[in-house]
C-alpha cells in the first residue's frame, strides 16, 4: 500500500528539489547509411534519423504527463560521423548540416555524434572530420561533437591532442559572436563511453544495437535536500548511506521512464546513466552538495575527498536500482552549469588546478570551464593531455570541455543561457608547454592496460 510519507517525498522531490529526468537519448546507428556519394549518404542519414526518432519527443511528453515528472531534454546520439566520412569522403560539414536538419525535423534538443575515435591513430576520414569541427559547430544549432584522443588500452594520441588544442580555439573564434558557444558543444575524451546519453559527448558506439534508448537521470537538488536534514554531527558513514538511498530512488524513477519509453517506441532499452547533473537553477548544484557535506566553499581543501565519496555513493545506490547502469554515471562538475561552482569560481576559491584534482575522482573531467581568450592552443592541448593522462592511468573516463572566451580576460564572464549557464573566466597557467606538445607521437599505453 502506498503511504503518505512516500507520496509526499516524491512530490517534494519534483516540486521543490528539481528532480527531473535530464534526458531520454535515442542512439541510432548510421553504419547502414554509408555511401560512396556524400550527398546520398547525407540523405540516408536524414531519412533514418527522421524515421527512427519521429515519435521520440511525443513519447517523452506522454511519459512526462503520465508520471508528472519533467523530462528536460530529448536527444539523439549517432554513430561517429568519421566512420561514414571514411566511405564517402567530401566535406564533413555536409553531415553536420544533415544531422542539424534531422534534429530540427524531429524537434529534439541536441544531436551528438559528429565524432572521431582516434586514441591510437587516424584512419580514413578522422583528420578531415576533426579539421571540420569548428565550421560544423559554427554552422549548426543542435549538433554536438566529441573526439576520443586516449584510452587505458591504447595510450594517448599526442598528434590528436595537439590538433584538438587548435580546434578548440578555432571553434571558439568562429562562434565568438555567439558567446563562443561552439566550444561548449565540443568534448575531448579519454576512455570515451559508447552509451553516454549526456551531451556534448554523446555518440552511438559501433558496438551498440541499431537503435537503443538511454536515460540520463539528474537530481543534485534531491541529494542536497536529503543531506540538509542530517544533523551536523552525523558521521561520513551516515552521509554516504543517505546519498546511496537517495540515488537509489532517483535511479528507480529513471528505470521506470526508460523501460516505458523503450516499450512505447519499440526500441531496446540500453542503460541508465545515473549522473548527478547540475543545472544553473538554484538548488540544483553539485557544489552545494559538497558544501552541505561540510565545506565552506566548493574548491577548498577537502573538496576532492567529499566528491570521491559522493561519486562512489551515487554509483552504489544506483547500481541496484537499475538492470543496466552505464554511460558516465557519477557526479558531474561542469563549472558554468552549476550555481555553486560559479560562485566558488567568482570568489577565486575554485581553481582549474583544484578542478583537475577533482576530475580524478568524479565521473568526467574539466567541464564547461571558461578560460581567457588569449590562451594559446598549446596550453589547451597540454590541458587536454593532463586530463587524458588522469583518465588513462585511472582507467576512467575523463574529458575536457573548455571555452576560450575570445576577447575576454579573467574576471569577466560569458553568459550562455539555458542549461549551459554562466562562466566566469578562470585563470590558467600560460607557461609554455609547446616543446612537449610539438613532439607529437603517442604516449604508450600504461602497464594497467595489460590485464589479460
Amino acid at each position: 500500500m502506498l503511504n503518505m510519507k512516500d507520496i509526499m517525498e516524491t512530490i517534494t522531490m519534483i516540486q521543490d528539489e528539481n528532480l527531473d529526468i535530464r534526458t531520454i537519448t535515442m542512439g541510432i546507428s548510421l553504419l547502414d547509411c554509408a555511401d560512396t556519394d556524400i550527398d546520398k549518404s547525407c540523405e540516408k542519414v536524414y531519412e533514418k534519423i527522421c524515421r527512427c526518432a519521429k515519435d521520440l519527443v511525443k513519447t517523452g511528453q506522454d511519459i512526462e504527463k503520465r508520471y508528472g515528472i519533467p523530462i528536460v531534454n530529448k536527444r539523439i546520439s549517432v554513430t561517429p560521423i568519421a566512420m561514414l566520412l571514411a566511405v564517402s569522403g567530401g566535406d564533413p560539414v555536409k553531415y553536420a548540416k544533415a544531422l542539424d536538419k534531422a534534429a530540427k525535423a524531429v524537434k529534439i534538443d541536441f544531436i551528438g555524434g559528429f565524432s572521431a575515435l582516434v586514441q591510437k591513430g587516424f584512419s580514413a576520414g578522422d583528420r578531415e572530420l576533426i579539421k571540420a569541427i569548428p565550421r560544423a559547430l559554427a554552422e549548426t544549432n543542435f549538433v554536438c561533437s566529441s573526439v576520443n584522443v586516449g584510452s587505458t588500452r591504447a595510450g594517448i594520441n599526442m598528434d590528436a591532442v595537439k590538433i584538438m588544442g587548435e580546434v578548440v580555439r578555432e571553434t571558439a573564434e568562429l562562434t565568438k559572436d555567439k558567446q563562443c558557444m561552439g566550444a561548449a558543444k565540443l568534448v575531448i575524451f579519454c576512455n570515451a563511453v559508447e552509451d553516454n546519453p549526456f551531451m556534448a559527448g554523446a555518440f552511438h558506439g559501433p558496438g551498440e544495437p541499431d537503435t537503443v534508448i538511454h536515460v540520463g537521470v539528474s537530481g543534485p537538488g534531491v541529494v542536497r535536500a536529503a543531506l540538509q536534514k542530517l544533523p551536523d554531527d552525523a558521521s561520513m558513514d551516515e552521509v554516504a548511506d543517505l546519498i546511496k538511498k537517495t540515488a537509489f530512488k532517483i535511479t528507480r524513477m529513471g528505470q521506470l521512464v526508460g523501460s516505458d519509453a523503450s516499450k512505447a517506441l519499440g526500441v531496446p532499452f540500453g542503460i541508465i546513466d545515473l549522473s548527478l547533473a547540475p543545472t544553473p537553477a538554484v538548488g540544483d548544484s553539485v557544489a552545494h552538495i559538497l558544501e552541505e557535506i561540510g565545506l565552506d566553499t566548493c574548491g577548498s581543501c577537502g573538496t576532492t575527498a567529499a566528491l570521491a565519496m559522493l561519486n562512489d555513493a551515487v554509483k552504489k545506490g544506483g547500481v541496484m536500482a537499475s538492470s543496466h547502469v552505464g554511460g558516465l554515471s557519477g557526479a558531474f562538475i561542469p563549472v558554468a552549469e552549476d550555481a555553486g561552482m560559479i560562485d566558488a569560481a567568482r570568489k577565486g576559491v575554485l581553481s582549474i588546478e583544484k578542478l583537475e584534482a577533482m576530475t580524478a575522482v568524479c565521473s568526467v573531467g574539466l567541464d564547461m570551464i571558461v578560460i581567457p581568450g588569449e590562451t594559446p592552443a598549446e596550453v589547451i592541448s597540454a590541458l587536454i593531455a593532463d586530463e587524458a593522462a588522469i583518465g588513462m592511468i585511472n582507467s576512467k573516463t575523463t574529458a575536457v570541455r573548455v571555452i576560450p572566451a575570445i576577447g575576454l580576460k579573467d574576471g569577466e564572464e560569458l553568459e550562455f543561457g539555458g542549461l549551459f549557464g554562466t562562466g566566469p573566466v578562470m585563470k590558467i597557467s600560460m607557461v609554455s608547454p609547446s616543446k612537449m606538445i610539438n613532439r607529437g607521437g603517442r604516449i604508450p599505453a600504461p602497464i594497467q592496460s595489460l590485464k589479460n
Partner: protein
Amino acid sequence: MRAVVTVIGKDMVGILGKVATTCANVNANVMEVTQSILQEYFAMIMIIDISALSCDIDELRQKLTASVPEMTIHVMHEEIFDSMHRI
C-alpha cells in the same frame, strides 16, 4: 490502474467536494482519501481508479487545477511511487 492525486495549498471551504466532483465527471473512482491540515496548510492525497477514465491523466490534472486554482495539484500514475519506494 490507479493514480495518485495530491492537493496542497491554503485551506479553504469546499476543496474536497470540488476535487471529488471533477474526478467523478471523468469517471475516476475515488478509492482512498487522506488529508491533513498543518497550521493553515491543507494537504490531501487521493488514490483514484483510472481504469475507466474518460480523458488522459494530464487532462484530469488540468481540470482539477481549473476547479481549485488556488491549490497546487499533482496527478501521477501510481507506478512511479511503487518503483521509487518498493524493491
